[in-house]
């Protein structure tokens, strides 16, 4: 049975290019370029590999502004078949519930799906709550933080790493899944795929048509960079002396 996989793709501010005002500690988003949330590419890779194995389609779903088309085209270049954008210029003003309802609204406009594939978190906010909330909203099971995925018939299986052990979890489709970035290295699209992706259609809906009721229950007031003072301890001596001094001092700090 061919699979229909939807991957959530988010367009985020490039965290490497955020500027912090040294005096106030305020993070400015002014002029910071956007990019695809890095971990989404691992989720895309996982979806594309499932498609390669079982056949079917991979579709992306994005909630964001027109700007997000850049990230969507990156996904298309990787081999995604179809792309949906639920358009809003106010992503930062939405709370998680509204985001989830917007995404669920987008999903309801799509053909029937089997798996909604998510990354472990987005590289900007990294709240990691969206997949769980979305599963709840859709009333389907949620397998989180998988580092491997297998599919047998309608049963989806995967390994989740915990601190000292690995647990294997499974559920029936349809389901929401989140994967950790270690699951696979994302493929590098070829120049031809990038060029072809530029010509593909992106189906766009307006967030306002998604029937998301009510106001945001929390809002983003501003972003501050947390100053972390480094201890800058220098050790001297032979490599093995330095190593044992380092270990001793980390033990003293309670780090190991």
């Amino acid at each position: 049975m061919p699979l229909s996989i939807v991957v959530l793709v988010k367009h985020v501010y490039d965290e490497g290019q955020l500027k912090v005002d040294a005096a106030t500690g305020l993070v400015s988003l002014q002029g910071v370029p956007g990019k695809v949330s890095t971990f989404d590419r691992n989720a895309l890779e996982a979806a594309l590999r499932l498609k390669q194995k079982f056949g079917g389609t991979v579709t992306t779903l994005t909630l964001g502004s027109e700007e997000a088309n850049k990230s969507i085209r990156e996904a298309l270049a990787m081999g995604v078949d179809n792309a949906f954008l639920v358009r809003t210029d106010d992503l930062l003003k939405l709370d998680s519930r509204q985001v989830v309802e917007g995404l669920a609204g987008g999903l309801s406009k799509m053909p029937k799906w089997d798996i909604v594939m998510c990354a472990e978190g987005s590289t900007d906010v990294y709240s990691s709550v969206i997949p769980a909330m979305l599963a709840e909203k859709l009333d389907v099971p949620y397998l989180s933080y998988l580092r491997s995925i297998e599919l047998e018939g309608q049963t989806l299986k995967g390994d989740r790493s915990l601190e000292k052990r690995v647990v294997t979890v499974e559920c029936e489709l349809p389901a929401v899944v989140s994967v950790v970035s270690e699951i696979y290295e994302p493929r590098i699209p070829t120049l031809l795929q990038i060029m072809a992706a530029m010509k593909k259609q992106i189906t766009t809906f307006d967030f306002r048509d998604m029937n998301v009721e009510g106001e945001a229950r929390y809002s983003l007031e501003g972003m501050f960079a947390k100053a972390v003072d480094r201890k800058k301890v220098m050790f001297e001596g032979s490599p093995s002396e330095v190593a044992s001094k380092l270990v001793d001092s980390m033990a003293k700090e309670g780090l190991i």
Partner: protein
Amino acid sequence: MALHFPDMGESDSRSALLNGVREFAERRIAPIASKVDEEDRIPPEFYTEMKEQGLMSMLVPEEQGGLGLSTSLFAEVLEMISGYSGGIGLSLEAHNSLGLGHFSKYGSKELIKSTMPGILESGKPVAWALTEPRGGSDARGMETRATRSGNGFMIRGTKTFITHGYTADYIVLMAKTEKGITAFLVDGGSDGLKREQIKGKLGTRGPDTATLSFDDVFVPETNVLGEEGHGFEQAMELLDGGRIAVGAMGVGIARRALSLSVDYAKQREAFGSKIAGFEGIRFGLAELGTSTEASALLVKRAAELRDAGQPHRKMAAMAKYLSSQVAMEATRYAIQVHGGYGYFKGNVVERMYRDAKLLEIGEGTNEVLKLVISSEMFR
């Protein structure tokens, strides 16, 4: 042929393409660059990977099975790659702008139809042979002869310093017939062709370099590229493009050398403070940053003229002339900023310094470029 994307602005598609190239350079080229330099060898599997990536057919028009990139975009791709590996940059430059570029532009319809798919499928670079042992600058004075014989030509002579000459399946060769210099597509498996590898390049190590001896090598009439006697003009036309590409390599090398220097200066301390704080360091970077951007603009301008079908011989020569010198100066300064650490193998700037030197020699030495520029000025 320029790229057009109906749904997206030209600049968006350009940046998407270049982002893809950057990712390939960072993830696939950077990790092997030092080994490619050390061994003076690019593994065949890597050519296959570059082929799949689209890098081995960048200037070939779409209808011939290539990507059909504009000169401008091609130059930017080379710029990006050459910062990571001058050797891989040179390989892609020589193959795309000269060897394959010449064949694609001047090969007959039938020859393209019968031979291009195999070349593109093989992912192997095509060599381009103009220079002879007795001199490269005076290309018109070449001694290699092609004499009529049956339904083709017999070739006699020697070419040297030929990039990819040792391994190429096909060689674009310039030789003199009674009508003048003529370009031929020579099958690498031809009887009478002897290849000798030239080892020990200073920089741009990776692609092989060879001396090719033609001792009565038969080439069929159908393998003449363009018209008999027009090979020199073709070669000069190709070199106009090649010089833009070499100029772009210089920009890429200079840009990366400077950015590595900035990174290093931010973390290296001397006299109790970061060396990045010293005006003596900063001013050199400011000067070279300015020269680099100036050469980038010349490359861009020359590329735009070529894409628009406008005369660009002078601009192309100027672009390579300036950018090759800037690349030399920028890499020299980069080693200076890195101090002793920059002087040793294994440090990227050491390799870049060696890579940059070729740019002042290949595809017209800087002296020859000054001849070209001044003769255009005195026209």
